[in-house]
């Protein structure tokens, strides 16, 4: 069965500092990988996704993520964090071409941004 681990429940980063949120997955083949962000009181918004091809994926709001098959990881990065990035971030994994009913979400990482 597929699974997703986000090892950090909370992370605090100073504004302007770089950010890396970790995501490890367990899946038998090449999966679909996603990062979503949830601002307080809002639904989830897609930041970026990996289906195939270039393992470094660019997303919205200056985020990027790198798929590393050897490490079963899909870590999210941003070079300089803004206060508006404070939110909860979810990594998700699913089998290719099987639809979203089989998508598995991680438990989330809450990002706090300090001044």
């Amino acid at each position: 069965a597929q699974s997703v681990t986000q090892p950090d429940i909370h992370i605090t980063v100073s504004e302007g500092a770089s950010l890396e949120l970790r995501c490890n997955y367990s899946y038998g083949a090449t999966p679909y990988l996603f990062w979503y962000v949830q601002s307080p009181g809002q639904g989830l918004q897609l930041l970026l996704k990996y289906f195939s091809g270039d393992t470094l994926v660019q997303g919205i709001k200056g985020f990027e993520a790198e798929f590393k098959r050897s490490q079963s990881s899909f870590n999210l990065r941003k070079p300089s964090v803004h206060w508006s990035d404070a939110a909860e971030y979810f990594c998700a994994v699913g089998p290719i071409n099987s639809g979203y009913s089989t998508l598995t979400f991680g438990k989330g990482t809450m990002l706090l941004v300090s001044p």
Partner: protein
Amino acid sequence: DVKVTQSSRYLVKRTGEKVFLECVQDMDHENMFWYRQDPGLGLRLIYFSYDVKMKEKGDIPEGYSVSREKKERFSLILESASTNQTSMYLCASSSDRENSPLHFGNGTRLTVT
């Protein structure tokens, strides 16, 4: 831009009440989903639908049912609400196009007292 609208942001209901959570999407998406979000547990799939009048159980369907009479509307029903169903409920939709993303509503926070 795709819009997924959940009719209520906050609901407070009593134990034993029948509760309807409504979700409407405006992009003619084939697929619709109901998730439950709880702290420390992430998102868990309750039910989903790939077509009108079609429904499939997700990972935690117990205590819930759904209705999809029209393509744009997907309702989650709690037949007899219980306190352990206090949670944030998220509706989502997607199209059948390859690599189509999943679009979420803003959620309904349900409290059962």
